[in-house]
C-alpha cells in the first residue's frame, strides 16, 4: 500500500514538473509549482525526513509562490 502511494506521488511529481515547464500561462505555472512543492513535501515525509518536509512546505509552497506572484505582477502574465 505504501509502495503504491509512493509510486503514485512520484508519478504526480514528474507530471507537475512537466506541466510547469510546458504551460505558457505563467500564473498557472506558479500555482502548479506550489502543487509540485506540496507533493515533494509529502514525499519527504514518507522518506522519514520531517524536518526537510516542514521546510519544503513553508518555503516551497509558501514563500516561493508569493515571491513569484509578486514578480509576476511586475511583468506580463503570458509567455511569448
Amino acid at each position, binding site marked *: 500500500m505504501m509502495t503504491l502511494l509512493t509510486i503514485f506521488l512520484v508519478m504526480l511529481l514528474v507530471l507537475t514538473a512537466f506541466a510547469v515547464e510546458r504551460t505558457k500561462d505563467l500564473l498557472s505555472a506558479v500555482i502548479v509549482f506550489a502543487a509540485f512543492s506540496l507533493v515533494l513535501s509529502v514525499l519527504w515525509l514518507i522518506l522519514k525526513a520531517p524536518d526537510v518536509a*516542514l521546510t519544503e512546505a*513553508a518555503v516551497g509552497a509558501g*514563500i516561493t509562490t*508569493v515571491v513569484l506572484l509578486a514578480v509576476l505582477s511586475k511583468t506580463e502574465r503570458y509567455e511569448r
Partner: protein
Amino acid sequence: MNNRLLHTIVKMLLPVIIVYGIFIVLHGHLTPGGGFSGGAILGTALVLYGLAFGQDASLKIFPESVSKYLESGGVLAIVVIGLVGLFVGGYFLSNAATGVPLGTPGDLLSGGIIPLLMIAIGLKVGSTLMTLFNALLEDE
C-alpha cells in the same frame, strides 16, 4: 472592490499561522523544524497580511525601521552568544560552559543556549522575508 471574503478569511487565518510559527520556533530543539522553518512561517503570515490589505497597511504594523533592527539584531545575537561561549568555554557556541541551565531533556526549557539561538534565527528569517517582499513590491 468587493474583497470582504478575502479580508475575513485572512483575519481568521492569521492568528493560527502566527501561533503555529511561534510554536515551531520555540520547540526548535525538541521537534522537527526550528528557527528557519518557524521564521519562514512567520514571514509568510506577514506577507499574507500585506497581500490581502495592501503594502501600506502592512508597513504600518511592521515598519521598515523595526525589521531593520530585527534583521541585524538576530545575526548579532547569534555572534554574541557564540563569542560568550568562545570566551567562557573555549570554543565557539559552547553550550554547557556558559552557565545557562541545561534542564531535563524533553522539557521546553532545556538545551542551554539552543532555544535562544532558535529565537534569534526565527526573528531574523521572518523579518528578512518581509523586507524581501517589500523591496520587490515597492515602486521605482
